[in-house]
């Protein structure tokens, strides 16, 4: 994992650095004299070899120093970055609170009623919502809840001087947009693992013993059918952070995603590098943790469920 991360950091650095456009020129504007540009290039250390610059950047990164923003001269990226990341984390977890129970519940229902009308409806809705880009489901939600019903804000802006905690209603629509996409993935996975478990011997045994159906479903079957679902939720955590860019741009939500977007618009190289590396970091780490968790949970499955 560490190897992947280091290789990643180099790739990102390299990718952003080889892009056309002179950073010093961008900072000073088109009217700058050649001498001024050259002087600034020197001061910023842009004339050093690529590898030297990479190690300087990566060294700072490891020590927790993200460098200085180019667009907002003199602003340490650290001062803005972590607040935005915090907002995104809150948004991601709000979405998690929405979609995890919802998709597990409907996934179980579809799995138990496999082949019946309820299953077809749930599967169709899942397939449809999963396919949509986040901003499309977002627009549909805005049209319903903001334009027609006028009960939730169109834009997720935090008034100056206030915190996210005072404006919790701005979380609802972005979180629902994410729920739309994730519902399909998670409920599909839950459905298929539920079908597998419901056909297993121990569930049949429990049913034949005359246990109440709901008890069998939730106490016996669900326990084992949750494992693949947990895996897919974990795997999607990293993906979720990438998807936040679209959702946050749509709602103007002040998080990591809109920060990344504005960094790209303003060609703020250090900020782009910080954002992309962080998104990738979350992605790699969540995949890694998911693998660990799977290994951790697996013996219990073998113990309780027989061979799989």
């Amino acid at each position, binding site marked *: 994992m560490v190897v992947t991360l280091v290789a990643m950091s180099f790739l990102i650095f390299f990718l952003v650095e080889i892009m056309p456009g002179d950073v010093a020129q961008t900072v000073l504007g088109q009217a700058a004299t050649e001498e001024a540009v050259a002087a600034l290039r020197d001061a910023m250390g842009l004339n050093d070899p690529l590898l030297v610059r990479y190690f300087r950047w990566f060294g700072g990164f490891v020590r927790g120093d993200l460098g200085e923003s180019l667009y907002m001269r003199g602003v340490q990226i650290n001062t803005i970055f972590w607040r935005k990341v915090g907002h995104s984390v809150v948004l991601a977890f709000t979405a998690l609170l929405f979609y995890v129970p919802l998709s597990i519940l409907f996934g179980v229902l579809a799995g138990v009623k496999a082949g019946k009308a309820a299953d077809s409806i749930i599967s169709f809705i899942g397939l449809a919502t999963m396919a949509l880009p986040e901003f499309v489901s977002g627009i549909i939600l805005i049209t319903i809840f903001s334009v027609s019903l006028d009960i939730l804000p169109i834009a997720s802006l935090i008034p100056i001087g206030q915190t996210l905690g005072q404006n919790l209603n701005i979380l609802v629509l972005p979180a629902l947009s994410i729920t739309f996409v994730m519902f399909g993935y998670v409920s599909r996975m839950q459905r298929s693992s539920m079908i597998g478990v419901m056909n297993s011997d121990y569930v049949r045994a429990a049913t034949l013993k005359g246990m109440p159906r709901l008890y069998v479903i939730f106490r016996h079957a669900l326990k084992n059918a949750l494992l693949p679902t947990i895996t897919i939720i974990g795997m999607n955590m990293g993906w979720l952070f990438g998807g936040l860019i679209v959702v946050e741009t749509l709602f103007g939500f002040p998080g990591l995603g809109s920060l990344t977007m504005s960094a790209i618009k303003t060609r703020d190289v250090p900020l782009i590098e910080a954002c992309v590396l962080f998104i990738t970091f979350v992605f*790699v780490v969540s995949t890694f943790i998911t693998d660990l968790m799977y290994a951790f949970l697996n013996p219990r499955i073998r113990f309780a469920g027989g061979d799989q």
Partner: protein
Amino acid sequence: MNTFLLQLRRHPLAILGLAILFFWILAAFLGPSVVPFSYTEMDMGYQMTAPGEGGHLLGTDDLGRDVFSRIIYGSRSILTVALMTSLFSSIAGILIGFTAGYFGGVVDTVFLRIMDILMAIPPLVLAMVVLGILGNSTILSLTIIVSIAYTPPTARVARGALLTCKNMEYVDAARIRGESHLYIMFVEILPNTIGPVIVEVTARFAYSIVMIASLGFLGVGLQPPTPDWGMMVIENKSIIRAAPWTVLYPSLAIASLVIAISLFSDFVGKVLIHEQ
């Protein structure tokens, strides 16, 4: 082919998906010659007109441009780019994945490492950063970048498909006959792995649509005045309260196309995976 059609009859949702897809393909080919307005034409006096008024079927935006005509025009670029990217990333993915899986050993290890690293950046983020920094996206640059972003996952699928067939007897037979590696890979193995590969291509087609729409929405897709569905959404988002149709209809166009392809690819997956 016949069994395919027979299967299709039993999946009404797949038929629905195909029908919608054909509608958009038709719109892309014939649309621009039958739409009532050009995509840049600004109908003065009809700014932000509600759907149905002044001959504007789906209304106009704040510049007085016909939303319906722009959506029809927009189907061209998104279908073109999506089709090309799913084709290119599949071809590149098959070439790379097959080579790695077939030769195994060091080649395969290096391949897996590189793919791990490339797949650690979410494709959308990768494409967004590169296109954003390059600026002024064209159909060509969009196609190239999205294809590159989608090659690693396709290569993995292709490699996995090849590995299931690699040790079959017919492969050994071909090797003993003295066939070349290329012949074995593409004449012997490819036809037998075509199921998962086709499933991958159709699924990739739907993902490409989502990706291209999202890139347009983020402002790093095709440049104005080319009508782009994603871009129409973000351009008009500020007037959503006054003229919701300017945002809603392009969104619904994306939704219908993506859902149609997903329904079809879901069906393809069911049929081809079950056959094996």
